[in-house]
């Protein structure tokens, strides 16, 4: 096979995927973590979950995003973090697509904010595409968690990729 050079290239693709997904998660969580009430309302605005459950998720989500993001940026437990991050993206996609389909006009609240906005202000398509891109990153890292400059490799050795 085109072994070593190909492997190296794939490691670098993994690095990019890891930094993209991790970076976005850290930024998204960081912007929300200081405003828990706002975050809770953003989740409620989707009108998918019972009031109290939506509140709990709204409060927990920023912390989850930051932690997963940090793991990905460090390349630590890359596969586990990528699987969880990918599941988050799937949940986000379901939320956004369902809001779109139901004719709600809300801000996704992905980076703070959230709640109802004017119909002309919605940008569901770009939100869906962005999360699809991030889902792709998660999928790559799930299949091939070995990346360049990751802590996994350094700490746990070869067999843990």
């Amino acid at each position: 096979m085109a072994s070593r050079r190909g492997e190296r290239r794939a490691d670098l693709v993994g690095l990019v995927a890891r930094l993209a997904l991790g970076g976005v998660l850290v930024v998204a969580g960081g912007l929300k973590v200081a405003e828990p009430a706002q975050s809770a309302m953003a989740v409620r605005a989707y009108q998918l979950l019972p009031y109290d459950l939506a509140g709990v998720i709204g409060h927990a989500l920023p912390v989850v995003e930051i932690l997963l993001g940090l793991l990905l940026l460090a390349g630590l437990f890359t596969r586990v973090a990528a699987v969880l991050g990918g599941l988050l993206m799937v949940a986000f996609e379901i939320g956004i697509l369902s809001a779109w389909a139901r004719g709600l006009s809300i801000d996704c609240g992905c980076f703070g904010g959230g709640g109802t906005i004017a119909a002309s202000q919605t940008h569901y398509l770009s939100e869906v595409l962005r999360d699809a891109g991030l889902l792709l990153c998660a999928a790559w890292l799930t299949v091939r968690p070995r990346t360049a400059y990751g802590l996994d490799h350094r700490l746990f050795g070869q067999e843990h990729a």
Partner: protein
Amino acid sequence: MTSRPDASAKIKAAAPKQGPNRILIGGIVAAVAILGIVLAVILGSSSGSSGTSGSSALPQGATGTGGGIVANASTAKAGAPTLDLYEDFQCPVCGKLEQVFGQQISSMAKAGDIKLVVHMMSFLDAKLGNDASVRAAAAAACAADQGKFLDYHGVVYANQPAQEGAGYTDADLMGFASKAGISGSALTTWTKCFDARTHLGYAKDVETAAEKAGVFSTPTLKLNGKDLPLQQLSQQYLTDQVKAATK
């Protein structure tokens, strides 16, 4: 074999300790994650703006726990449609709405052509990092007890700060009471109600109830439960819609 026992120990010590290391670090990460999530949920739900007991005192005219205040219970005609008005005292567009439609809406209410129900939301407190909306709502609820709800409501919007987020001080809200025509013993009662934060719980319940009803922005107008699109709103449109909804 038994002659050189220390060599195997040396080899063992030199080998990288992979298993336990990974489990240990994983355990630490998981512990941090659980701690962080639990902490965030506890802190978040105690930060106030989410629902409260429901055992709080209801102001006069409130339709129930977390319900809006019926501004014109005495004048509303039997077949008049219900206009639900969801507003936040710190919302600039609500201020605009009051400027343009406030007069019309309150005269329709006074004439009894509509049953006006005002839901004072306060989610902008979270957005703006203060508590002015919920305090103003509690203050207006105290005014409702004195039969001066619409007057107080109007004074607050007339004095909305030019810059969103500047909010209302307690002194502002107290000054609004006399501007709304509350005086004498009524003012004493109002002040007592305001100082004791009597209706703060009610105000929080209103926000919760509005969100449960799917209202996440202000102003929102519902005529007999149906959303009135803000983009189409004009005085003529409002008049026509009310006429059409009247039985």
